[in-house]
């Protein structure tokens, strides 16, 4: 199918984009990479009156290290995250994750801002920014807002953004001493949306987690920062303790039923990823063996 007719405006600046959004309210849609918006419009799930194309706004693209945060512009494309030395050094979790986002031709246009604003619960980058304790920077008619990633995602395709606001950047705390990361997902085929996935950040000292954040995706209506991780912090991780954490994890998940998997299968896969993640980050393969008991 084809998109319904709409008017088109090429924004010339962030200020200009905000004016256009203010003038048209929820009848307008922002166009970044178009890799989620265009399919939705072609399927007539969305038919905005006007599309505000922010694709040309160079001010929203690229990376900057400011003190202990890496600032990533909203229009930074997936392919740029994959190839960026700054990301590899300061936020390797994003690089590992983005290799699983769609396919090369789609990664050449899809942007981090678009992915976060779209907020598909099976999407990789939302879970990463939650695990990394990132801050989402938003600009609207009243100026700038800073929103913790953990509060940004509200539900399926639902975020704290209002229709007259633009997501302009993401601030990720740079990987500190001793930080380690884990990313894995189950998908039917490389590049497909995940059936279940995990993006994690940890600080390990003396064989223990001093910090541990688990960002699960495709297990609920939004990325989940699993509190089950708390049980494993500042503790000597045994097979028994890990089993307890896995049980606690199953309780806090609220997976959906779809053609790909039942809630029970998603709970099981999430527990497998938890064990694998803990075993890998603590370099204790014997902990993973518990997964197939």
């Amino acid at each position, binding site marked *: 199918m084809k998109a319904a*007719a709409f008017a088109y405006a090429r924004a010339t600046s962030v200020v200009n984009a905000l004016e256009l959004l203010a003038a048209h309210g929820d009848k307008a849609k922002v*166009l970044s990479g*178009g890799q989620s918006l*265009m*399919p939705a419009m072609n399927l007539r799930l969305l038919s905005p009156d006007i599309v505000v194309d922010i694709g040309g706004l160079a001010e929203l693209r690229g990376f900057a290290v400011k003190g202990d945060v890496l600032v990533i512009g909203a229009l930074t494309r997936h392919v740029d995250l994959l190839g960026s030395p700054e990301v590899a050094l300061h936020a390797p979790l994003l690089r590992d994750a983005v290799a699983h986002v769609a396919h090369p031709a789609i990664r050449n246009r899809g942007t981090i801002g678009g992915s976060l604003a779209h907020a598909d619960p099976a999407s990789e980058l939302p879970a990463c920014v939650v695990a990394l304790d990132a801050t989402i920077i938003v600009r609207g008619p009243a100026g700038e807002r800073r929103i913790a990633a953990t509060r940004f995602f509200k539900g399926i395709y639902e975020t704290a953004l209002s229709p007259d606001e633009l997501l302009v950047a993401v601030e990720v705390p740079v990987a500190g001493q001793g930080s380690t990361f884990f990313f894995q997902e189950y998908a039917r085929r490389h590049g497909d949306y995940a059936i279940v996935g995990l993006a994690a950040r940890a600080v390990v000292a003396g064989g223990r987690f001093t910090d541990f954040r688990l960002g699960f995706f495709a297990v609920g209506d939004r990325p989940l920062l699993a509190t089950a991780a708390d049980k494993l912090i500042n503790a000597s991780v045994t097979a028994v303790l890990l089993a307890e954490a896995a049980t606690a994890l199953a309780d806090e998940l609220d997976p959906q039923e779809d053609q790909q998997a039942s809630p029970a299968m998603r709970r099981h896969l999430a527990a497998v990823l938890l064990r694998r993640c803990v075993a890998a980050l603590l370099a204790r393969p014997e902990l993973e063996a518990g997964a197939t008991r």
Partner: protein
Amino acid sequence: MSVPVSISLLVNGEPIDAFVLPRLNLADFLRENLKLTGTHVGCEHGVCGACTVRVDGEIVRSCLMLAVQAQGASVETIEGLSDSGEVADLQAAFRERNALQCGYCTPGMLITAQDLLKQVSMPDRQAIREHLSGNYCRCTGYQAILDAVEATAKTRAERRA
């Protein structure tokens, strides 16, 4: 309120000026306005890869890009890659290895495979599989397509040596 927008772009190296409605996607612009029908349209939501073209040197889905977004860009289609001889060896390998049957997916497969071979000179089968994972072939030519891309990578490496 939907009025035609003027665009200027390069298509296969030729300057093109046109007036297009905002809803027209790049795939339809190439096929219908410019009669470049090598770019195929399958799913129109980014899943099948039949509409893959190069924009400013990078592969994209032309069904997910508006023609108006191509303002100022350089677009290359399978006709361009074919006429310049850039993919002649890849095309020959596809024929030799039976990697094209109905040919519907072939333009997208060729452009995507060429994109990989430009980035990685000797990709292994896993890398080829991953790079082509966004392109569907309904005739199930996948193994043969992998063979053809792998064979082309080898002959290109030998030619360079």
